[in-house]
């Protein structure tokens, strides 16, 4: 636990992201934090949230957090199990997903994401897993939430590779593409929440967790991060939120 506080920044991120989800929303989730976030919301204020995993499970209600997106419990608890091509055509591309969760190794000021390589593509310094479902989630979910710890290494002035377009060059460029969704509407970090500014589409710190300063967030960003004039202070996880989150992890 960071700074001797009774909760970790990971827990704070998870809770802050879960609060953004509403009951009944249709959520396309990957493994790791996104899955934890969506399931936490389901156990808290959003019992009717619909979880879609790209493995083909629609409406899964796992009691423990899956390690892989294709765990048996997802299939056993789903309303419907369909093929993977169907997930990407009839469900994602058709615009039926309210919220898509994305992670990445790098993000730029317009919320474009790199999960492919660090260094040159042909001679990578670090080869990352790659695109998976992310580029089309980024395009077609009605909105996306990005979850990513903030550091000058991950919040970069220029991506080494653009895997998933956010607002591309900003200033309405995304709206002129054939991407259907509104794009990244929140980036949840271990310092707070960034949102795109109207007009420029550039990310701005709009909320900070109560145990960090906006100055710390700016220092952890590889570009001159704008801070909203009215900065929201995001409340620490409640006892209830922490209990449910920890129970969920303990069961897993």
């Amino acid at each position, binding site marked *: 636990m960071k700074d001797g506080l009774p909760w970790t920044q990971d827990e704070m991120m998870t809770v802050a992201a879960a609060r953004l989800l509403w009951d009944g929303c249709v959520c396309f989730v990957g493994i790791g934090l996104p899955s934890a976030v969506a399931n936490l919301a389901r156990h808290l204020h959003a019992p009717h949230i619909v979880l879609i995993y790209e493995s083909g499970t629609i409406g899964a209600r796992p009691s423990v957090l899956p390690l892989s997106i294709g765990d048996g419990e997802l299939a056993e608890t789903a309303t419907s199990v369909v093929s993977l091509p169907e997930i990407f055509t009839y469900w994602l591309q058709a615009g039926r997903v309210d919220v898509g969760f994305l992670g990445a190794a790098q993000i730029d000021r317009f919320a474009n994401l790199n999960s492919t390589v660090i260094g040159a593509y042909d001679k990578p310094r670090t080869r990352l897993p790659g695109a998976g479902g992310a580029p089309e989630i980024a*395009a077609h979910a009605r909105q996306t939430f990005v979850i990513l710890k903030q550091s000058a290494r991950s919040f970069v002035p220029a991506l080494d590779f653009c895997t998933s377009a956010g607002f591309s060059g900003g200033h309405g460029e995304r709206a002129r593409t054939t991407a259907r969704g509104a794009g990244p509407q929140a980036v949840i970090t271990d310092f707070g929440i960034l949102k795109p500014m109207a007009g420029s589409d550039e990310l701005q710190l709009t909320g900070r967790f109560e145990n960090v300063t906006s100055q710390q967030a700016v220092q952890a960003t590889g570009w001159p991060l704008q801070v909203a004039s009215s900065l929201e202070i995001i409340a620490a996880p409640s006892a209830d939120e922490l209990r449910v989150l920890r129970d969920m992890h303990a069961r897993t």
Partner: protein
Amino acid sequence: MGALLSLSDAVQRHVHDGQRIALEGFTHLIPFAAAHEIIRQQRRHLHLIRMTPDLIYDQMIGMGCADALTFSWGGNPGVGSLYRLRDAIENGWPQPLSISEHTHAGMAAAYTAGASGLPFGVLRGYINNDLTGVNPDIKSVRCPYTGEQLATVPALNPDVSIIHAQQADRAGNVLLRGIIGAQKEAALAAKCLIVTVEEVVDTLDAHMNSVVLPHWVVGAVACVPRGAYPSYAQGYYARDNGFYQDWDAIGKDRTRFTDWMRQKVLRVAA
């Protein structure tokens, strides 16, 4: 069609050096036993095709079976890297690996086109995405009605596809249950289909709308109980999540990897 063979005979007969082969299974029903047999039979210069290379291709690549890889997400799910895949791409060990990289939606469209007898698949995808700059296979068509530009991918038609399933009946009809990924498409896109199954039964445990591949599209069936381990077979055994985590340390080190493969794969009879 649908001959019941030993796994060793099935690989001997149908899998040849230099082929384009797809061993599919999305997290579930990954045909590990078949991959191990291909490694034992020392197939070389394969062009491997799979959405998620997973441990199965990490092993095949690390053992020198492959010259090329078509894929869309190359990690150890929920754990981290595939170090053998990375070592091949980053350092050319044990040999260089050329890659053709897609998104999941693109691979799915390519398999679907392959299964449908179409030369290409269409999707609204790869939008403002650097993959289009590094993969010349990603092109576009214009919608004749709206004028919209849409992405295309060339059909994937592997020489051989291999999948694992729960059951085959004695005629060679094959039943898949649970998470089915893109296996049906990969199976029907292939020139030759090999299926390993948990068991051969008199009557499939199928209902009217089950996913069943009829015997006359199946080239060979091999009965290989636990043939998907450490992946899983719904209704038979669970995914060994612990092994996926252990693989992180095994796969990270060339020597440890080679030792593990020698002991756990090469010295085991099919």
